[in-house]
Structures are given as structure tokens and as C-alpha cells.
């Protein structure tokens, strides 16, 4: 399923002095139903200017999409008494459940460290970790592991050179969402940079939610636990009995 989020740029200009992005979403929702198997968001738009394109380096575009943040515990295994067991752990205060950075060129070229720190754009910056316990000396190994595991599951993505920019005005890109998505608001940010500096920024959000049977079951399992449990058992027993009856009818 391909969901198209069209980001429009309005040419009806208000008074501006520099380059900027104005956005409108035609579709800002991703629905998770029973057949959900990941999705792709297409983001495109244009850069608005009152003045001619400045001289020098071309404008670069960076797009980020971040799922709801949640605390995560990262645990490390060590060999104890011959078997591998979880020993040390580090609590990461807030890590987005999903995070994608897509840029028009290498992130290192389009963004300098100061701007990265300010806007929390690159993946390591998007994770907030206040500090590891005193007994852990290599705390960075834990946040590296978090990024590695999430990246392997496609939940953290860094795609450099995937935003195409035409005539320094039109840009477009696609962001792949994996099947395992958390419900919530996905903060979507578009940055314009020139020579490593952020010159314009626009924020919006994409709402990811469960619909239909998915939503109904999920809500019931949280709000009405006893009813949900009894219903699960009733369905199981009915199916067990039913299939058994059907099977013996076929045997005769």
C-alpha cells in the first residue's frame, strides 16, 4: 500500500526576505489495518523566494521523520558461568520509536555540527541520553548498539542523496515506513541548508494510527482486559470445537 502525502508549496507569496518552505499536506495520515505491511510516504514541495537564487553553494534539503519517543533499556550480555546472560544495562531517556533522515547530499556536507546539535537532526543526536550509571565506562557502546539494532530493523534510517532537488527550487523524496510501527504523531521536519547552515525549517506531522478491527481489538485489550480475555478464550474454544466437528463430518 502506498500512501501519498503531497506537500504543496503555495506560490501566493507573503512578504519574505529569504528562502523558505510553506507546507500543506493533502494526506497526513497512515492507517494500520489488518493487511498493513509497511508503507511509503512521498514528500515533495518547492522553495519559495522573493529574491534571485543566491550565489555560491547550492541549497540542500534534509527531511526527518520521527515517531513518538519512549524510554528504552539497552542491555548487554556477558559470559557468566559458561552461558551468555544480560548483565549491565543503560536507560536511554528518550529514543524515537522510528527515525528517518533523508538528505539531498552527504549529511556531513549539508549540515555542520553546530546546526546538527541545535536541531537534533542526525540519528545519534535524535536520541536523548542523560547519562549512564557510574559503573559503566563505555556508555557510547550502548547508544551505538541501540542505533545498530534499530537500523537493522529499518526503524532508523539514514539515506544520503535520496532527496532530489531540481533547479534549486523543486524537491522530492520518499520515506519507507517498516511494518512494525508505533501509533502516534510522526513529527516531520524539512530543513533547507546552504553551506552547512540551516536557512529555513518547516515542521508538520503525520498521524499514524490503527483503524478498523485492529483498533477495536487493541483498545479492548487495554480498556476492558477481562472482556478481552474471555472473548479470546471463547473464540479459541468455539474454533477448536467447530474445526473438530467439521473434520469428523468430513471423515464420515
Amino acid at each position, binding site marked *: 500500500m502506498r500512501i501519498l502525502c503531497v506537500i504543496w508549496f503555495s506560490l501566493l507569496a507573503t512578504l519574505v526576505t529569504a528562502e523558505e518552505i510553506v507546507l500543506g499536506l493533502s494526506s497526513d495520515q497512515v492507517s494500520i489495518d489488518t493487511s498493513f*505491511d*509497511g508503507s511509503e510516504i512521498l514528500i515533495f514541495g518547492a522553495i519559495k523566494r522573493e529574491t534571485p537564487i543566491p550565489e555560491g553553494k547550492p541549497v540542500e534539503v534534509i527531511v526527518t521523520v520521527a515517531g513518538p519517543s519512549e*524510554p528504552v*533499556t539497552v542491555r548487554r550480555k556477558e559470559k557468566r558461568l559458561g*552461558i551468555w546472560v544480560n548483565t549491565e544495562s543503560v536507560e536511554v531517556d528518550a529514543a524515537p520509536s522510528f527515525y528517518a533522515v533523508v538528505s539531498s547530499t552527504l549529511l556531513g556536507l549539508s549540515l555542520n555540527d553546530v546546526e546538527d546539535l541545535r536541531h537534533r537532526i542526525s540519528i545519534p543526536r535524535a536520541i536523548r541520553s542523560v547519562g549512564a550509571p557510574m559503573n559503566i565506562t563505555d556508555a557510547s557502546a550502548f547508544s551505538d548498539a541501540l542505533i545498530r539494532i534499530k537500523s537493522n530493523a529499518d526503524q532508523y534510517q539514514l539515506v544520503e542523496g535520496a532527496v532530489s532537488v531540481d533547479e534549486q527550487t523543486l524537491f522530492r523524496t520518499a520515506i519507507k515506513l517498516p511494518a512494525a510501527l508505533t501509533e502516534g504523531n510522526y513529527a516531520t521536519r524539512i530543513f533547507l541548508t546552504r553551506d552547512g547552515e540551516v536557512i529555513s525549517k518547516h515542521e508538520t506531522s503525520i498521524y499514524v494510527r490503527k483503524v478498523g478491527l485492529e483498533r477495536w481489538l487493541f483498545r479492548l485489550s487495554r480498556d476492558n482486559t477481562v472482556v*478481552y480475555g474471555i472473548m479470546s478464550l471463547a473464540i479459541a474454544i468455539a474454533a477448536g*470445537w467447530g*474445526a473438530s466437528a467439521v*473434520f469428523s463430518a468430513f471423515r464420515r
Partner: protein
Amino acid sequence: MQVFLPIAEVSVNAFLLLGLGGLVGVLSGMFGVGGGFLMTPLLFFIGIPPAVAVATEANQIVASSFSGVLAHFKRKTVDLRIGTVLLIGGLVGAALGVYVFNILKAQGQVDLLVKLCYVVFLGVIGGLMFFESLNAIRKTKKGKPPARKKHNWIHGLPFKMRFRVSGLYISVIPPLVVGVCVGVLAAIMGVGGGFIMVPAMIYLLGMPTKVVVGTSLFQIIFVTAFTTMLHATTNYTVDVVLAVLLLVGGVIGAQVGTRIGVKMKAEQLRILLALMVLAVCGKLALDLLLQPAELYSLGGAGH
């Protein structure tokens, strides 16, 4: 065909789940075990979160055992009296198990303890069953009659009760203890507990092999139903869509398995079950002993 599971929050191929259910269902019918000890690790492998796998498996076992126990009721191979004693122990054990499970989950050690439990229980029981069955087969080949049941320490315990269907006059303490152990395992490992209950009934209680399968299924249904309710209300980890897909395959498989089981000799059945138990045990032991490819793992805070 991909299906998004609402509670597990992952997308899985529906036919894969149906196939897994069917395969484990055949084994469940053949051996009178819930099949959970195979299904739960298989669910881990296809990416279902362990907590969801354990709880959903309990729900699925209710269904796959239900059709099995109906077949056994028709053939009058269920000892309701000893089944009830086992059940009382099972309910107590399940409550205890879910309590321990939730404590370990908070400490991030639940995976390790689940795996250690599997290795120890499967290794001991699989090994015992394997050698017992080998001996039994060798004896019948030599033409000697099987040894008579001996009186052991179990017959010295108080609170004796008569179990007519099984032809036993024993204390209620051993079946109660067996029930509690099975209940704990059901809650912690997402298994019906047949793999421990069946050998315990045969070797410890001395029940005739004929009624063992039906009676264990009878106990398993109620204990796993209780476990499902406990997980659904405290952990919110029962995925009904996953359970339904597994049980559609599982129920049909169980019917096929029950028919295969009737045609096979008890010793052959037991040696097959022993080999499978040992295979699962070996795989899990290797996972603990070899250095994992990824030393780090993620967990939600406070889970």
C-alpha cells in the same frame, strides 16, 4: 498474505502461521502435549515479542487441546477424578508463575530464565524418556513381559484417594505437586506442560498410558485458560488474531495427530517424543553457550 497483528504490532505471513499451527497441531494430537514447547520458540524466531508469544500460546493451547480432549472423552480415556486434583494444583501454580514472570520481566532476565528452564526440563525429561523407551522396546523384543509396577515411597504418603479409571489407590499429594509444577511452567514458558505431566503421570503416579494423554489434555485446558486470563489482565499480551491463525492450523493438525497416535505403539510414540524434546533442548542450549551475534538487546523501560 501479510497480516498485521494488533497486540504484537508486527506484520507476519498468514500462511506461515497456519502452517506452524498445523505442524505443531499434529504433534499435539500424537503425543497429548500442547505443543507449546515447540511453538513458543518458533514464534520467537519469526519475530513475535517473547511476552506476547508466551501469553498467546497459552490461549492457542486451550483451543488445540479442546478438540483433542473431545476425541478422548468419546473414547472414555479421561480420568476426571485425578484430572481435577491435577487441575487444583495447576491453578495455584499458574498464579505463582505469572507473579514470578512479571518480576523477572521488570529485571530483564525473563528470556534467560525461560531458556534455562527449557534446557533443564527438556534435557532431563527427554533423556529419561529416551532410555526408558529404549529399554522397554529391548525387553519386548526379547519376549520378556514388562516389569510389574513396584511399590515405592509414593505409596507411603497420607491422604489416599481411589482413582477408578486409572486403577490407582494413591495419596493426593503427588498429583497436586505435579499440578503446581505444570501450572508454573504454563505461565512462565508458554507451554501446556504436557511434556512434564505425561512422563510424571506414567513414571511417578503409575497411571496407565491409555488415560494419560486424555487426562493431561483435560488439565491443560483449564490451566492454560486461567493463564490466558492472567496475562490478558496484567500484561495485555494476548494477541487474539495470532491465536486464531495458529489454532485454525492447530485444530486440524491435532485431529490428524490423534488418529496417527492411535495407530502407533506407546513405546514408539515415547521414543519419538523424547527425540524431539532433546532436539529442542539442544538448540536452546547452543543459543546460551555460543556467543550471540548481537550482544546488546533492547527493552522498554519498566517492562
